[in-house]
């Protein structure tokens, strides 16, 4: 199977990865300026995972992900404005300000929720896949989670149930080598988490999470498999988060030079270089794309800053569905 997508697709992926990268950089600023409260979890360095998977999906497919879900939301097509407004708790945010940084959710694009409880989103995706199977919708559900999440009970229960019911769901583990401040080997006795698929008799595959085209190919295979009724797959994307776990964490627990090594395999650079090699892009075009994206992100932020907070009555709205 070729590892090369046509030029236009590459362009779109590259632009979207830039949107994620630049948005995340700005989100860090907004957090430091206290325009975003509580906490933020950035996915800078992991952009290829959400983009590669999103590009393998169709309309009607669904996804659950984590508090580190800004990239996933943008990858699925959430407008930057909706995300930035949500970050600041504004009424025009994707969750009307109620969710915040950890809960980017947009039913209209199939994003069924970013979850702040580690592992809780896996069974929820299994349920979405159940709907697809029962209603013969032909849609596929994706659940994103981290390496640390593979040690919690819901991971085990969700994969087992999905396997026994042969549901159309793809479990996507972004192994960024750390769960909070703990390196994988300190909490997890296996190196390749993909082997945990064997406990459920489903395919498990280790995938280079830095090359968006590799991610896409692996996701496409798993998604097609699910769509055609052959059941779930566990994909492990080897990746890395450049920033700390959250908030102001700088990652002091990471060995000297580890980050630098990963910077050599930056997902944006990798795709960019390929495109340049294939005469699909040159530096000027890239810089224009980057500047355009920066303008887009900044205007979204400036717009969001001016948006109103929800009225206090909203407090009691939507605890229950009325009617």
């Amino acid at each position, binding site marked *: 199977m070729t590892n090369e997508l046509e030029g236009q697709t590459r362009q779109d992926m590259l632009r979207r990865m830039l949107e994620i990268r630049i948005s995340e950089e700005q989100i860090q600023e907004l957090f430091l300026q206290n325009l975003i409260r509580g906490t933020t979890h950035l996915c800078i360095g992991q952009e290829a995972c959400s983009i590669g998977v999103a590009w393998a999906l169709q309309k009607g497919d*669904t996804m*659950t992900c984590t508090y580190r879900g800004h990239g996933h939301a943008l990858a699925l097509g959430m407008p930057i404005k909706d995300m930035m407004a949500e970050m600041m708790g504004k009424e025009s*945010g*994707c*969750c*009307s*300000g*109620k*969710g915040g940084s950890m*809960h980017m*959710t*947009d*039913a209209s694009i199939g994003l*069924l*929720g970013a*979850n702040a*409880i580690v592992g*809780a989103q*896996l*069974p*929820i*995706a*299994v*349920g*979405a*896949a*159940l*709907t*697809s*199977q*029962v*209603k013969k919708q032909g849609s596929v*559900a994706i659940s994103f989670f981290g390496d640390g999440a593979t040690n919690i*009970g*819901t991971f085990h*229960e*969700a994969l*087992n*149930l999905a396997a*026994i*019911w042969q549901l159309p769901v793809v479990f996507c583990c972004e192994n960024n080598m750390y769960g909070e401040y703990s390196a994988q080997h300190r909490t997890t006795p296996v190196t390749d988490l993909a082997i945990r698929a064997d406990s459920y008799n489903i395919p498990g595959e280790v995938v280079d999470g830095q090359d968006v085209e590799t991610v896409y190919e692996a996701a496409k295979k798993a998604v097609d498999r699910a769509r055609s009724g052959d059941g779930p797959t566990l994909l492990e994307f080897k990746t890395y988060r450049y920033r700390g776990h959250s908030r102001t964490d700088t990652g002091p627990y990471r060995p000297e030079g580890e980050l630098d090594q990963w910077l050599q395999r930056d997902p944006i650079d990798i795709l960019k270089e390929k495109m340049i090699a294939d005469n699909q892009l040159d530096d000027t075009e890239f810089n224009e794309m980057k500047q355009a994206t920066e303008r887009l992100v900044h205007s979204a932020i400036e717009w969001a800053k001016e948006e109103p907070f929800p009225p206090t009555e909203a407090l009691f*709205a*939507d*605890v*229950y*569905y009325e*009617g």
Partner: protein
Amino acid sequence: MTEMTYREAVCKALADELRADPDVVFFGEDVAEAGGVFKVTPGLYEEFGPERVRDTPISEQAITGAALGAAITGLRPVAELMFADFVPVAMDQIVNQIAKYRYMSGGQFVVPLTIRSAQGGGNGFGTQHSQCAESWLMTAPGIMVVVPATPTDAYGLLRGAIRENNPVYVLEHKGLYNLKEDVPDSTGPMELGKALVRREGSDVTIVATQLMLHRSLEAAEKLAEEGIEVEVIDLRSMVPLDKDTILDSIAKTNRLVVVEESPHSAGWGGDIASLAADEGVYWLDAPVKRVNMGEALIAYSPPLEDGALPNVERIIHAVREVMA
């Protein structure tokens, strides 16, 4: 009128909703091929087939989480957690996910799911298989909680719960499964959140549910012999709570006894007592008494289990106290 047991009423409600709405699915541990460990759901698998009526692995977190995911994508799932004692096993999915999902998303989702469990003591199942789950579930705004005490309510409230567009937890009482009653053939899906005065009385109000309701009614009959007229309210629904029916009764009797099949601490009876102490305080002529398990747990040994659960004698004693 059709005579049926509480057990049969639950099964009929499930069958009627599965028939009425193709989006209704039902799953849980051994609920399909085996018809349930309490033999509540026989025949559903045979009638509605393996797509819609499913057995699951022993995975309470996956069962409840899958119900949530299915509910927000177009199904109307009914999930069974065999014993209400397993609510804590799936507590995160129930209180942090199911109850909050609509709210956190800013109202993007409707969550039309139902979870059923058998609860309650009196059957020698021991400490981990005899509990009631109301107080655990009521801590989480976003999920409704109903507690049928009769076959008619078991049928109507379950159908109402399945039709409800919010998450509903239906707690069935193990001790009532064999209770028989003539169920009016006109009974359909019932509105949730309405209490019922099961017995009128002018002297004391008793608020109770399920097994404790039946014991309270028995106590009321005995007390009537000595001229004490007890009004007995069956809550039927813990969330939403029917405050008016409770307050109207207190306004009339000026006395309140709450009978809970659970420990005292953080029990739901506290909410009823606090309602009386707030909006009903000027009507109260006597202390508000709570008859419950106090600080006891349910033990296996028959005399201990019997001692832990409020019984007719203890209810009578409490009523006498507030009449004194």
